[in-house]
């Protein structure tokens, strides 16, 4: 950013815009200031191949800036845009967090409660996997598909299984999760790869015409991996940051991987998978409620939006005779209601990690002065 802009106390706009464009530019700049929290200056440079009229206009002052009050219902917090006067630019210009950091120990009870929940889900999944193995042995495709769907949803009710890969145990859990829930996308030989195992390998077989009995080996390996995970999970590390982030990201994964259909291309069980992610999120948020109390605006929005998503999910199930439909069975209206409620919930949930920080954001050190070597 131009050095000349620092502390100048006003924003210079490209002096070539008509009044409508200028209004839009002001709006955009105000929003950028909110997001960045730093002074932002544009100069008139750099538009060598201008497509605009060349009226001249005086540099436009943008102080004082207004209070920014987002209209979206799930973003309740009010952000006051500071005047650019005296604002510091650069990576060190980190605005003070709204709430003081929480002690890490405050997360002990929520995480312990989540571990109990996760283990219960794993046990339920193990039961479903027994049914799956029985159905596969019997070469009963319909029963095997039902058991697969139930077991898959049971596993996803854990919420995302990503832990700190730097810790040995965390890396083990991550590797197990890959074997259980990995997709063929990044594998060298795709669905033919020997590393393609677990739920998605069985899904591939069950929905692409393979003999169910031929999948028994995959199912027993899957059951073994789930049992291993159940043994490791009570001891696996889970930091406050990972746990708070999980409140947001379980449903991000659901939107990206499941409701989109990307990771369940054959079974189409993306709605069921999203419902499982919602259940996990509801559990995580419930355990965090005592800590979120201090951020009433966030908590209120999260509760409202999660309830809206739960209601949308129930309406869709009711319209399909009590069972959640596959992605392709959704009508456009049902699809829009689920997508919209999910996006609304995600906007609200994205405020959770910031409200639960255990340490103030560190100040970024500056690059040492330029008297030393500078590469071109």
């Amino acid at each position, binding site marked *: 950013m131009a050095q000349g802009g620092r502390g100048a106390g006003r924003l210079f706009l490209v002096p070539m815009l008509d009044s409508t464009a200028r209004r839009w530019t002001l709006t955009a700049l105000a929003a950028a200031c909110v997001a960045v929290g730093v002074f932002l200056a544009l100069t008139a440079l750099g538009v060598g*191949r201008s497509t605009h009229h060349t009226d001249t206009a005086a540099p436009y002052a943008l102080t004082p800036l207004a209070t920014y009050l987002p209209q979206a219902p799930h973003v309740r917090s009010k952000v006051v845009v500071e005047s650019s006067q005296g604002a510091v630019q650069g990576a060190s210009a980190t605005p003070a967090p709204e709430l003081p950091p929480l002690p890490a120990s405050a997360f002990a009870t929520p995480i312990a409660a989540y571990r109990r929940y996760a283990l219960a889900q794993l046990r339920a999944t193990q039961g479903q996997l027994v049914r799956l193995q029985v159905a596969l042995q019997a070469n009963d495709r319909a029963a095997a598909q039902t058991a697969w769907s139930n077991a898959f949803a049971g596993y996803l009710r854990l919420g995302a299984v990503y832990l700190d890969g730097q810790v040995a145990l965390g890396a083990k859990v991550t590797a197990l999760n890959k074997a259980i829930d990995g997709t063929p996308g990044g594998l060298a030989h795709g669905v033919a790869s020997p590393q393609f195992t677990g739920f998605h390998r069985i899904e591939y077989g069950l929905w692409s015409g393979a003999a169910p009995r031929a999948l028994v080996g995959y199912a027993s390996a899957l059951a073994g991996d789930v049992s291993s995970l159940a043994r490791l999970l009570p001891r696996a590390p889970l930091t406050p940051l990972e746990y708070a982030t999980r409140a947001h990201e379980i449903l991000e994964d659901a939107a*990206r991987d499941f409701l989109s259909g990307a990771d369940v291309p054959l079974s189409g069980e993306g709605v069921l998978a999203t419902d499982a992610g919602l259940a996990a999120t509801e559990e995580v948020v419930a355990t965090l409620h005592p800590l979120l109390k201090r951020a009433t605006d966030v908590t209120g929005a999260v509760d409202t939006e999660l309830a809206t998503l739960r209601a949308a999910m129930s309406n869709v199930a009711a319209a399909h005779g009590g069972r959640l439909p596959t992605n392709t069975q959704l009508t456009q209206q049902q699809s829009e209601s689920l997508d919209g409620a999910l996006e609304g919930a995600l906007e609200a949930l994205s405020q959770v990690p910031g409200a639960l920080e255990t340490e103030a954001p560190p100040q970024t*050190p500056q690059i040492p002065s330029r008297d030393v070597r500078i590469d071109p």
Partner: protein
Amino acid sequence: MSPLDRRAFLTRSAVLLGAGGVGGVGALIHGSDQASGASTAAPSAREEWDVSQAQLAARNQFDGIHQAGILTPTQAQATFTALDSLAGDRGTLEATLRALSRRARELTAGGPIPLLEIDDPPVDSGILGPVNTPDGLTITIAFGASLFDGRYGLGAQRPRELIEMPSFPVDDLDPAQSHGDVLLQICAHQRDTVAHTLRELLRTVHGSLQLRWNIDGFSGAARGPSPHSSARNLFAFRDGTANPPTSDAALMNELVWAGRGEPAWAAGGTYQVARIIRQHVEFWDRVGLSEQQNMIGRERASGAPLGGTEEFEDPRYDLDPDGKRVPLDAHIRLANPRTAATANQRILRRGFNYTRGFDAAGELDQGLMFVAFNQSPERQFATIQTRLNEEPMIDYITPVGGGYFFAPPGAQGAGDWVGSGLFAAAS
């Protein structure tokens, strides 16, 4: 009306159309400030073109030692089109590629559209008007590994490292959006120029080369603060900051142009890595700014490396061995560690943003048409990509398509064509 009358009527119209066309040419050639068409009145003092006429008239050379569209400064608009060959034999393929280059040369040069028989389909779709303005157009033609399979007897001349793009661990490649026999990269300043060019080139090759995948791209506008400031990608970060300078011919010989170890015809060509990288923008927008900046390694607003103040500042990793300033797994640090050992791994990026509707979950399908030109994908692109396998940013992106291609050296003037050296060597 008798058939004769109808023909006479059409001929008269053709004369009028021709006259209009000539008027258009005059306006262009003389740089007239006169609006074509409805009014011949001089514009008022305050009236100006919405679009720079000088830019519309800007012309790149199709012919040259190297193809255009590689070192050429990135235009505002692009389309990438992969084609599969249906040609039954090598002669047909050769004739098709010859015609492709000829038409590409014409379109790159621009000029008035010839008028033929009025009862024939026009020789040009005409969507740019009676005169095709060059508009900074470049057409870059590249070949995929599959063109060197058994069909045309080209296998012995395959560039040494031209393989089907492997699936990297972060990838979820859709075969319908991946690979292909021929890749056309069409870039210009205006969208209509790009749309027109693709249509015209496809007319030339219909029946022999068939669409496999296509994606439109655009550049972020030059919004400063300086004319050299890199434009932003759809994660809002500046992209291309660390690109090697294209003005450094010696460096381009080290990093971009193929030569040593390659079949003789390939010298002066380059490997083109094209990857359609979906960016999960809603997710990204819901991540804290400091986390975004730590994933990239730069400050979002200025583009400066973390702890710096200016976009092109050296991040000085040598003074930050523990990643206290720029995290060790930050994108810019993994992509280009700026060490002596990694200097020859650098690539020339020439990507475009894309937007194309939304997915079944109602999330926008936006991303980056990543393009890298490099001398050796093994030494350069794939090495970098492997380092990036574990970067935190992978949760927010999904590479869904693209491929490895080889852009042969440029054609040497009228009569020559892109790929002629390959076919001569293979015959």
